[in-house]
């Protein structure tokens, strides 16, 4: 495309079916104890 560069496509929708295994890290346990961010966690379901 000439005007638009896509950094990442529709990554969320695909996770509706395969997601939810819960093996990922708890959000508040790593480096924040007050301002939780979930979007910076990594999925561990691909092992």
């Amino acid at each position, binding site marked *: 495309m000439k005007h*638009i560069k*896509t950094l*990442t496509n529709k990554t969320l929708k695909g996770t*509706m079916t395969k997601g*939810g295994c819960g093996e990922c890290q708890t959000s*508040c346990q790593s480096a924040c104890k007050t*301002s939780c*961010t*979930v979007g*910076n966690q990594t999925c561990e379901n691909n092992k």
Partner: protein
Amino acid sequence: MIHQYKNNGYNIVLDVCSGAVHVVDDIVYDLIGLYETKSLAEAKGCLPQYTEKELSEAWEEITALKEAGELFAEDEYKDFVIDFKKRKTVVKALCLHIAHDCNLSCRYCFAGEGEYHGDRSLMSLEVGKAAIDFLIANSGSRRNLEVDFFGGEPLMNFDVVKEIVAYGRSKEKEFDKNFRFTLTTNGMLLTDEVMEFANREMSNVVLSVDGRQEVHDHMRPTPNGKGSYEHIMPRFKKMAELRGQTNYYVRGTFTRHNLDFAADVLHLADEGFQQISVEPVVASPEEDYAIRQEDIPKLCEEYDKLAVEMLKRKKEGRGFHFFHFMIDLEQGPCVAKRLSGCGSGTEYLAVTPWGDLYPCHQFVGEEEFLLGNVKDGITNTGVRDAFKLCNVYAKDKCRDCFARFYCSGGCAANAYKFHGNINDAYDIGCELMKKRIECAIMIKAAECSTTD
């Protein structure tokens, strides 16, 4: 729903519900806001600075992405939440309050200098073992289990920490579990022996330091009023090096006294740390160090400044990680995780020195949130169920927020402290979270443009 913003010379468009992220030129940036309410002919009339050909091309590109489900995607997750409510949750992480006691007198301590508004107390090995047993018994088929040694200052009860780790390890094979132990420490008792143990057993360590010496010493004095910076810094540097500059964080808190906190983050980077987390204090509005609404523009400027400096340093080969700018656009969490948030009260619980269970470390001492104890398990299922239902769709303030799938509704404890309701949101925290997400995505855009 889309969210568009300009940052550091980049025009960025997030397609909130699909998760797609686009970098666009000025034509698309100006046109996309009109796309859903105007026809192409009308839009052309609104944007006379562009040629008809340019606008037609841009319109076509937007349309192609819409058809591909990467722009203006509908929110299809609401029905998913209904199933989500019925889910059986398991416990996968515990925050063990190994010591309700501390050897520092940090002014902003939410734990009341370690005591959590109760008496000074150390966790016994018996309670620690019962906590491990509780976690194993309540974790279902979940293999990776996290246990954070927290306080107060956990190293004031180091012998029990060692024994709990040994006990946990002794159970891994039998129950097919993998314990990930972590330690959060102020560094006052960080000896070579502790470092050796932590580097063998702890998958992550969190080292508390606020940044510049004057900032740190003002907020983190010893009980007799002296600064702690000079005592802890050499130890933290050694620890970071011994861990190969990975699997640790130096973690600081900024307050109204250092609104120029980017200087503190950069100070930590200048001191050689490569894993840095510095977050805003959460405090009652009457405290002189509490962040106020009027401070938000200054803090947003600081995040911008920090993001630009991080890019510059990365280019120069001296980059570092800032926890709150980390974002995984490709392999990030699934929708289920993004909807459910941090897991407090369901997957993640805090354990007091005497074995009581609370939804997280921030709720300890709030009696109405007492869930049960490690011996009898969760007896107050009403509180657990309230947390189970706590998700982005349960929060009015989150429903139309572009950041909802990144922050997942924010911190329940902060919402409760400011509004008395876990399904509300802490407004200052929201503004800062949104800014951090914008900066994090800008960094990705900039990195992508330099690799092209």
